[in-house]
């Protein structure tokens, strides 16, 4: 009897990500969410294949490990995108400081 339900699994995965990221949750892209959904479906399919004897326990373990690694790859992309967003914000602030100082002084100091 299959134990995994995609809706429950996806809900748990998204709640875990949300709980961990808290205020940064809003920044998780739609691509990451849809990727997690597809990976949840893969886990359900792996369970089905194991139960109907299409794959062995050993193969199932390898395939599940691949899903875990892929979740990490997706989250690393989100981390990279987050760093780029912060970087852009910092450089925007530096740009404003530069413009403000130059305007206040009346000539290009910075």
């Amino acid at each position, binding site marked *: 009897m299959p134990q995994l339900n995609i809706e429950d699994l996806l809900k748990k995965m998204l709640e875990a990500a949300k709980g961990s990221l808290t205020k940064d949750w809003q920044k998780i892209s739609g691509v990451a969410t849809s990727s997690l959904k597809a990976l949840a479906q893969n886990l359900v399919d792996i369970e089905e294949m194991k139960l109907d004897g299409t*794959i062995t326990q050993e193969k199932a373990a390898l395939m599940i490990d691949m899903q875990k690694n892929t979740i990490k790859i997706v989250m690393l992309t989100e981390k990279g995108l987050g760093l780029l967003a912060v970087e852009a914000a910092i450089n925007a602030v530096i740009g404003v400081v530069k413009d403000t100082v130059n305007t206040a002084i009346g000539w290009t100091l*910075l």
Partner: protein
Amino acid sequence: MERLQLKLRGRLLLALIAPLILMASCKVMLIGAYDQGTDMAIQKVQTEVSTILVKLETCIENGDTTNVTYKNFTKSYEEIKVDLECLKVRTGAIPKYKVVQDQVNLMYANILNFEKAHKMGNTSAKEIKTYKSTFEIGFGAMIQLQNALKREKK
């Protein structure tokens, strides 16, 4: 006294402006610059993996139990592993590229798992579908980050 006050005012002005000069002269980078070599290498590995998957899919559809076996793909896996080894070295050499290097290591682990599973034999259509989905998501995420690293202004 007046001279001292002027001197102090000058130093104060310098103390205020110096950090601003320093800030404005530096462009902050929290993650490494875009590297075309890395981007192209990731896409090359993705094509190589897709080639294996498409061949397996075709063999299974045609009921070809001979050509689906691992021994027909040993050279393909070897080429992928060589490309990934080169990618590991390349991403390790680029400053602030740990995120990308970690992704490469995880993808390498996935290729090794895929290879082990293939060696076990009895590959089914449903299994291939799962591998395809897994690799599409993984490579998709990596390429998404590579595109973002171009830092193209919208």
